[in-house]
């Protein structure tokens, strides 16, 4: 979109350019000869009483270099779109066409490789070091911002190198997660359970993974857990990959362990989002990425 609102300026600048080039040629031609300088060796100009200027004319071949730049300018404007938006240039070049050309070239170069990788099963692909190298680059570009460059995650962003999966660790599940994204929602229970209720549930949850907990609160919390939390986290607290509900019986804590962090999670709830990548990456790239992520917690061939 042009910054100018009127087509007039387009034409104005095109004419100005053409006239300027022509004027340069005329100036150069008209300044080829002149009156012979008075003295042979100086221009005749004298400043500050005794400063005179030596007449050191340019060599004739230098003038032809000037003409050459004018010819270059004219040829350039014929070949490239330099004279207003209506002149596309003989070569038909534009930034967009160049991008398209280079993208096409890259696709031609790497297309067969991706096709070959896309045809392989994820578990076979994970055995291919070349595919894993591509996968790691993709991971560092698209995933490492949240999941860290070692895929070990961070608070709120799951670790991808262990066997604990919120949405399932089978290749198909990983591929679905990357393609469509995930929305993990834990509703806030603070208003329903009250401060004391939250504390009781928190102690029960801590006891599930063998952490130290107040035994009275544990037994009170157990009943609330069965009626309120088990729907998603399961009666035993083992989680549910269909809902993205985490397993509470292991030592892996997405939002922090300890009474304070767990109480906060229960009181305020949590909303986590993994964005969908289907519009950002091609299916073939997602396939390779899946193989890379899967390989982080699995030894291929077993």
């Amino acid at each position, binding site marked *: 979109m042009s910054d100018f609102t009127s087509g007039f300026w387009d034409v104005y600048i095109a004419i100005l350019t053409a006239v300027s080039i022509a004027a340069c040629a005329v100036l150069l031609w008209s300044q*080829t*000869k002149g009156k012979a300088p008075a003295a042979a060796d100086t221009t005749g100009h004298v400043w500050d009483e005794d400063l005179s200027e030596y007449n050191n*004319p*340019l060599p004739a071949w230098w003038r032809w270099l000037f003409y050459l730049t004018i010819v270059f300018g004219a040829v350039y404007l014929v070949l490239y779109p330099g004279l207003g938006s209506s002149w596309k240039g003989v070569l038909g070049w534009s930034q967009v066409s160049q991008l398209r050309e280079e993208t096409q070239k890259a696709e031609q170069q790497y297309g067969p490789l991706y096709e070959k990788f896309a045809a392989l099963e994820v578990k076979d692909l994970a055995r291919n070091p070349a595919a894993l190298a591509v996968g790691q680059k993709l991971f560092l570009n698209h995933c490492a*911002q949240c999941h860290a*460059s070692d895929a070990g*995650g961070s608070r709120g962003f799951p670790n991808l190198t262990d066997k604990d999966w919120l949405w399932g660790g089978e290749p198909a599940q990983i591929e679905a997660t990357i393609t469509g994204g995930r929305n993990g929602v834990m509703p806030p229970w603070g208003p329903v359970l009250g401060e004391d209720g939250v504390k009781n549930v928190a102690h029960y949850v801590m006891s599930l993974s063998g952490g130290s907990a107040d035994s009275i609160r544990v037994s009170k919390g157990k009943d609330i857990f069965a009626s309120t939390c088990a729907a998603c986290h399961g009666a035993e607290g083992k989680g549910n990959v269909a809902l993205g509900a985490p397993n509470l019986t292991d030592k892996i*804590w997405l939002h922090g362990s300890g009474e304070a962090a767990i109480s906060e999670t229960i009181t305020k709830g949590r909303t986590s989002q993994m964005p969908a990548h289907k519009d950002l990456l091609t299916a073939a790239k997602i396939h390779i990425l899946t193989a890379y992520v899967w390989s982080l917690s699995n030894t291929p061939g077993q």
Partner: protein
Amino acid sequence: MTQPLRKLAPVAPAGEVSLYEVRQKIYPRAVGGWFAAWRWTLVWATQLVFYGVAWLEWNGRQAVLFDVAHRKFFLFGLVFWPQDIIYLTVLLILSAFSLFLFTALAGRLWCGYACPQTVYTEMFLWIERRIEGDRAARMRLDKEPLSFRKILRKGGKHLVWIALALWTGFTFVGYFTPIRGLASELAALSAGPWEAFWIGFYALATYGNAGWMREQVCKYMCPYARFQSAMFDKDTMIITYDAARGEPRGARSRRDDYRASGLGDCVDCGICVQVCPTGIDIRKGLQYECIGCAACIDGCNQVMDKMGYARGLIRYSTSHAMEKRLSRAQMFARVFRPRVLVYAAVLLAIAGAAAATLWLRVPLKMDVIRDRAAIAREVEGGMIENVYRLQIMNTSEHARALELAVKGLPGIHIPGEATIGMPAAESRVVTVKVRVPAGAQPGTHRIEFELKALGEERLEVEEKSVFIVR
């Protein structure tokens, strides 16, 4: 015979002239002598290095290779990476200060003896003389009508010039792409388009500049020529015609006492003009065209010898020496003036510092890039973990085992194996986890990574970073 300084093309109507100068071809006459010998010594020295060094091998690779494609620059035992660009800066500074010093001492020494334009012109002139003869013969040949003999001479000269130019282009490109491989590629006519282009480009530049353009390069294209004169002072030794001794000039018979007839030492033979590669008359004093080649000194000395006069009617001298009629000893004493001493001191200091840093250079580099979005995470036992990506560069040509350590916080450590194997002359990104025990103060802490080569004392680098606890 003397040549007019410049000629403007006459244009009708009368009174109008072309404002551009018509080039007059210069036919420098061959000259031998002390300074010509010096120039030839430098031609040999620089060109043996240029044409020869490209073929030397070192550690199973080309000894001097500027591998732009892989961004590695080999200089015998040293391997420079783009991170070592400071050494290029140092080289440029050293060159600049050498120029200041030598110019203050004796004017355009670089131009007259070592500049590629001078060196290649000298080589091309030598070829021209072998084929077409010396000055007079060349002038005669140019005036002759076209004949088989003329075509043979001229054609032969250009063929030899082009061959030398192509070899020069080939050698030049051979410093950027391995020359042995390039030679076999050329033999098989399979050199890449860019290699072929640059060989052709450099060959054309050599042929055009040394064969055709010659003094035009110094007079009109070289900026160096113009600003060098700004470094002159009245004690700078320049090529000087001793007018007090030479004037009034004039032809004379050997039998007569020329002093009695009021003549100076200059016999006005014009040799000094004929040998001049830029076609000037040094007797007019210092001119910007003078490249300081001292050909006129050699030429004049030969004539003085023949005449039985003392040498040095044209010689290296200073403005002060001329004005105050200083003796040689008095003139040389003025070499030790503040300008020269300061240039020399700065040059020595920079050269010394550069040599020391090269000697102490650790062929190991590390950059620490902290994971930015994933700030800190809790791992088993409540430990806090941060993730870093280390770009480790082994710039030496030996594979190394490296040991990584981290310090700066109580209990800070790298879990698991902290030994990294690095192949020779490789760069590698290593992802590293760093942990501190539970209970660390929340906030940002300064830490330091230490990378040591196992079994080698001096090979150690440290790099700062931060550890975040929340």
